[in-house]
């Protein structure tokens, strides 16, 4: 389908009006060809090579290729790509093809080879692309073209990614056998870290950590002029890699319980459920007891204290793995969060309902445990399974991450996470944290509200000269970073006058005159 593209081809200096294949269409052709190859392989596949998987992978690749070829929107870049970016994207694309081949079953034949060809190349290509895009240019806010991008602003690529992410979670939770080829490529790494073959959760953890690290590098580049962002991004990368990946793996390697020291009840609900507590307590040595102590102490003692001093951000945008993924992988889609009052109303109902749900579930489990099933029988177990399925899997995973490219990066944190709910209550009523508005300097441009991943209409407060204190604010600091007039700053301070900010500002500092100030305000 030869075509002419008016917007971008001219911007990269091609003669207008010439007929040619866009580079995107060439990519489409490669995917189509590769898909046909896999279909062919399916025809000759033996038992070991699973004709069915070849066929499915071939179809996927074919569909991708045709979509890329025939939907110009999918591949028309909004900005001209430099040669470095092209190399990065090329490697990334080749890595994707290899991942499809891996899924077809080839991963089982040569795990190490396909680990590097797929996962390795996607990682390398992504890093090279990020480096080419950001390195060697002045630091500063560069949201150029975000609203024109079909990847970042619900264009064709965005929807496609949404389907791929969601599909991955569906397979991961309920059809892990379909991912067999991919899981096998993780075996060599799993032997090193876990001392046993990989399962779907090891594969998932590895991908999750890689996503945080690679896209963390992107965030470090993107916000490199801002020290708060650099330190914060480094923190989420560190906690994901060490606390949510390496330490749990090493614990397994030494035959200890796989325990995540960076997740607490009620987010990690089962850590304070009787089954887990009893199992941990029964572990030999003091480690299991320490884990139970850690879980309880962090949930009930450390959380209120830390939130009092620094707001919920100490956890949500500095430590938490869900937050870490949102701040790194999810950053390109942070502006897609719904800013309407309606969404805010739904948020408050929904997140507190989930909190009630998990507290109730925990309570009935303990009652059941204490009464040895005399009161509730099998009911509490069923209750717990419903919570695990609906909230733990569907909400946190499928919707929480799967919908990143369509509904923004913090769907789970905003509407579903019970930990965020408790932290939010502390933050709103018992914390020294606030976002301070700098007098009358706001120009109502809307950058703060737009790039707030939690859907807070920051501007509504800022343009009134009012401080921002909202239960949902995770303190990522991006509103302050994108503000072109230096209006917003995240601060901890005395709780008196936290709502009104510095005493001078009542509603609109700009009108205050000497006489007004003497009279006490307008």
């Amino acid at each position, binding site marked *: 389908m030869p075509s002419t593209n008016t917007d971008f081809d001219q911007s990269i200096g091609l003669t207008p009006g010439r007929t040619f294949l866009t580079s995107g269409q060439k990519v489409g052709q490669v995917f189509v060809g590769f898909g046909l190859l896999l279909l062919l392989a399916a025809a000759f596949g033996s038992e070991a090579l699973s004709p069915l998987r070849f066929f499915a992978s071939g179809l996927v690749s074919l569909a991708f290729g045709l979509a890329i070829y025939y939907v110009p929107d999918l591949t028309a870049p909004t900005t001209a790509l430099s040669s470095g970016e092209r190399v990065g994207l090329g490697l990334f694309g080749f890595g994707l093809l290899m991942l499809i081949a891996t899924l077809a079953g080839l991963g089982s034949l040569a795990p190490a080879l396909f680990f590097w060809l797929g996962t390795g190349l996607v990682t390398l290509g992504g890093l090279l692309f990020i480096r080419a895009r950001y390195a060697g240019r002045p630091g500063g806010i560069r949201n150029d073209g975000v609203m024109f991008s079909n990847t970042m602003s619900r264009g064709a690529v965005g929807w496609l990614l949404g389907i791929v992410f969601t599909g991955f979670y569906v397979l991961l939770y309920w059809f892990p056998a379909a991912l067999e080829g991919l899981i096998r490529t993780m075996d060599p790494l799993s032997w090193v870290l876990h001392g046993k073959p990989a399962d779907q959760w090891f594969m998932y953890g590895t991908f999750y950590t890689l996503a945080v690290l690679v896209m963390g590098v992107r965030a470090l580049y993107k916000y490199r002029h801002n020290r708060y962002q650099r330190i914060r991004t480094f923190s989420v990368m560190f906690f994901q890699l060490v606390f949510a990946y390496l330490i749990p793996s090493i614990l397994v390697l030494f035959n200890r319980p796989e325990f995540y020291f960076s997740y607490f009840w009620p987010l990690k609900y089962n850590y304070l459920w009787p089954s887990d507590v009893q199992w941990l307590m029964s572990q030999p040595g003091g480690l299991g007891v320490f884990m139970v102590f850690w879980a309880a102490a962090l949930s009930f003692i450390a959380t209120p204290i830390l939130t009092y001093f620094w707001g919920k951000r100490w956890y949500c945008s500095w430590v938490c793995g869900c937050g870490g993924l949102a701040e790194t992988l999810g950053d390109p889609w942070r502006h897609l969060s719904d800013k309407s009052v309606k969404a805010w109303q739904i948020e408050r109902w929904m997140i507190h309902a989930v909190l009630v749900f998990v507290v109730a579930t925990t309570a009935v489990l303990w009652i059941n445990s204490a009464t040895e099933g005399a009161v509730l029988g099998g009911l509490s177990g069923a209750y717990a399974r419903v919570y695990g399925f609906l909230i733990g899997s569907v909400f946190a995973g499928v919707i929480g991450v799967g919908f990143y490219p369509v509904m923004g990066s913090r769907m789970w944190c905003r509407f579903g996470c019970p930990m965020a709910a408790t932290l939010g209550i502390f933050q709103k009523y018992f914390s020294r944290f606030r976002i301070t508005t700098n007098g009358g300097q706001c120009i109502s441009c809307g950058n703060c509200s737009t790039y707030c991943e939690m859907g807070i209409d920051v501007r509504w407060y800022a343009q009134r000269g009012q401080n921002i204190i909202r239960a949902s604010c995770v303190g990522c600091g991006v509103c302050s970073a994108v503000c072109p007039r230096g209006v917003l700053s*995240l601060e901890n301070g005395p709780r008196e006058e936290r709502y009104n900010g510095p005493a001078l500002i009542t509603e609109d500092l700009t009108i205050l005159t000497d006489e007004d100030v003497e009279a006490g305000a307008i």
Partner: protein
Amino acid sequence: MHIVIVGNGVTGITTARFVRKMSDHRITVISAESDHFYSRPALMYLYMGHLTYEQTKPYADDFWEKNRIELLRDYVREADVAGKRLFLSSGAALSYDRLVLATGSQSNKFGWPGQDLDGVQGLYGLYDLERMEQNTQGIRRAVVVGGGLIGVEMAEMLHARHLPVTFLVRERGYMDYLLPPEEADMVGRQIRSHGIDLRLGTELKAVLGDEEGRVRAVVTSAGEEIACGFVGLTVGVHPNVDLAKASGIETNRGVLVNRFFETSAPDVYAAGDCAEFREPLPGRKPVEQLWYTGRMHGRTLARTLCGRRTPYRPGVFFNSAKFFDLEYQTYGDVPPALGPGLRTLYWEHPNGDRCIRINYREADGAVTGFNVMGVRYRHAVCAAWIREGRSIRFVLEHLGAANFDPEFFTQFEAEVVATYNAGHPEAPVRLKRKRGLRALLTH
């Protein structure tokens, strides 16, 4: 009472909002430009793709109905100030009890040859933005003329679309009619660091067109011909007085008003960019064309409209801007050249990308103004120090309380104090407070 406001920019809308807060008067806001209020300073972010139009609206669309502010999309041709009626382009007429003119500005053009060719334009409103979108399709170079805030914004906009930009600025230093030389240099360096071909001390002589009437080049005062497909004329704005003139209301550069925003016609007021004070306030301009002044005008005027006749009494002057990545905030009065009896304390980072300037009176040391670039300072703190006439020594001792940068940013207050002490070795100042909110609240 029916209050009709012509213009839905920040002045008109602020007036409407505060009239509603204070009264139950019927309010109608008429605009030819847009259905709803949007943030004019955010225009650049639309072209750059940082924001969508919807996101530049400070209030949701249902805000207006909820607050009973009637919006009318029409152009007001003329006001019959005796009969208190407006005649609209649609043919309709509208009666009012009180009329507010908040018609804003228009872009300047100085009669250059070729200034009306296709591809030559200013930047003021949504219409200009649409034209700019079309005018910059497929071009290879753009020229921006005029060293004001809109000029640098336009250069940044074009740069964000990967278009090479030549930037002609008449002055020897960027915006040196407002900025002291050090700050002007810093902005110039910032503009050049982004690859903009900045030509200081260069004026536009003529715009050349091709046979289809489209711009093909500009000729500069140096006699150089620069091939380009787009010319942005950003040489300032002037008050839009078309309606006032057509209605027989007294005008000069702007619509003439007193400190109550009352024009020569009864029950007709003018505020914002389009108004000109018959007697300017001490130290302020007769025509104030800032977002912030528009907001202050509107807030003050709303009180008068609601029966509490209030003169315009702005507090300590403030303004802000962003030149590419360089943020700028100013408080009080910082003239480009130091006046008699004034001293200045200027600190600049060795990298040349941040500075802090504090002006003070020689006689009593009272601070009169702040300029900060690449650093954020607190409005409330700086304004209070200036208003209270705090001495430079007091201010330096407490300078940390003014810092508004995000957490973990390097603080430069100690360097500023050291700069002062280098000139006053006999009585050095000691920085008592670093930055912190507690310092501010216990101040």
